[in-house]
């Protein structure tokens, strides 16, 4: 059963680390170039009216979720939250690509260089990671295989 035990220990950890890196990176690069980010959001046809609070809300939310991952108690919650957030981002991209004649990009750092298709693939991978994370951390909470 050693393999299983290792799997159960490492897979959630890898998922957690990946998500922390993603969110901290994305949030920091948004804050570093905050003004630009806000302008881009304002140009977005979906969010114009809400640009002001969304521009603060999104990076803050990303940092909060990254923070939650650090507490074993909240890992499951954090995975659910990340899962929802990633689905929102993906929906946003799909909506913008298909229903708007105006395509801005508001992602931070190197993520901005991704093409839209790559972006969707990237997001889908992270959604999958969240699902895996949910599955494993859920089992973990119910099992005796130690805490993270």
């Amino acid at each position, binding site marked *: 059963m050693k393999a299983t035990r290792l799997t159960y220990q490492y897979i959630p950890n890898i998922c957690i680390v990946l998500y922390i890196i993603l969110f901290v990176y994305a949030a920091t690069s948004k804050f570093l170039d905050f003004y*630009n980010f806000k302008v881009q959001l304002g140009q977005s046809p979906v969010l114009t009216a809400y640009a002001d609070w969304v521009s603060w809300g999104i990076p803050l939310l990303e940092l909060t979720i990254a923070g939650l991952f650090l507490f074993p108690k909240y890992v499951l919650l954090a995975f659910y939250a990340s899962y929802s957030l990633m689905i929102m981002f993906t929906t946003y991209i799909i909506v913008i690509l298909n229903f708007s004649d105006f395509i801005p990009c508001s992602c931070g750092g190197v993520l901005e260089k991704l093409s839209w298709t790559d972006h969707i693939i990237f997001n889908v991978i992270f959604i999958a990671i969240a699902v895996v994370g949910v599955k494993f951390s*859920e089992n973990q909470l119910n099992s005796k295989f130690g805490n993270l």
Partner: protein
Amino acid sequence: MKIKTLFILLILAVSSITVVVVLFLLSEHEVHRNNAFVRRYPHHPITKKYDLPIKYNSYYVSGFDNDILYLGNNTAPLHLLEVNLKTKDTNHIQIRMKSKDLTFQSLKVKMQPPYFFIMDGSVPCIFRGKIGDWNAHLWMKDKAYFNQAMPVDSNKIYINTISSKTQMTTLGLIERQENENINIVLNTDILEKQIDGVFDVDGIMTISPNTGTLGYVYFYRNQFMVMDSNLKLIERQHTIDTVQRVQIKVANLNDNQISKMKAPPMIVNKMAFMYNDLLLINSDRLGKYEDEDMLKEASIIDVYNWQKESYEFSFYFYHIGKESVKEFAVFNDYLIGLIDDKLSVYEIGKKQFNQVSIKQKTIRL
């Protein structure tokens, strides 16, 4: 994985998608809908004649000479397509000019029978030649930069430019006198600043082909101006829309010294064309009782009579497939529009158009 977990994941997915879609619909609604005005759509103000394939989508309207329509081409600046609207005959024209090492950036060809003008405001230079002869000669060089230009008559060009005095967009005229001296006239009072005097006053220039009356229609507010051929203001009027204040946000990205629009601007007037007393304005804004789905099939064009200070009626300019009209013009009995790589030709209803275009200076609404 437990059923419960799957269920939670499903619920989260559905609600996340809903949130984003709802946000999108709300902001779409805010941009398009305005219940404060009502349009009138009479029956058959225009009748479709034909769609003519013109092979490229880079054509723009250069002008008319009787029943001949001239189309300029953005990618081949010295090429013209001549279309006889009656017979549908087409003819390709190559303009000849001695450009003397000038590097052009945005050449536009505009007709002012019996002349045609070739203009580039970034050089800046203007060439003139005779229609039919197609040899262009230098007419003006280096006197004034301009963004857009249109000939008013054979020695006068209507321009919009940045005034060096105010650093704001200004309307002007370039006139060439008998002795070939160039005279620049700017009228800084016509465009009224609401935010920065550059973005907010942006709009559409138009000239009535027969009378030489000048028009300017703001993009972002419900106002247009009519000037005589000496750029003296005749009328300042409102459209049926209710947006009086420009709704744009300009952001100055300081580190790179660039001004950018902070939000997608609310465009009140998209395109305009003046024909005698009539001003035709295309707007995507919906009034009361108008079906949103209509915008997927057609562009709305409102007809105003500036002499009578009245809104007359509206009509639909139908798309071809999914492509909407990107430029339109009226001449004699024709309404023409460029849609993708096609030219749509309509006949205008004499009843609707003539009734309103008869000069009725005494009757004011």
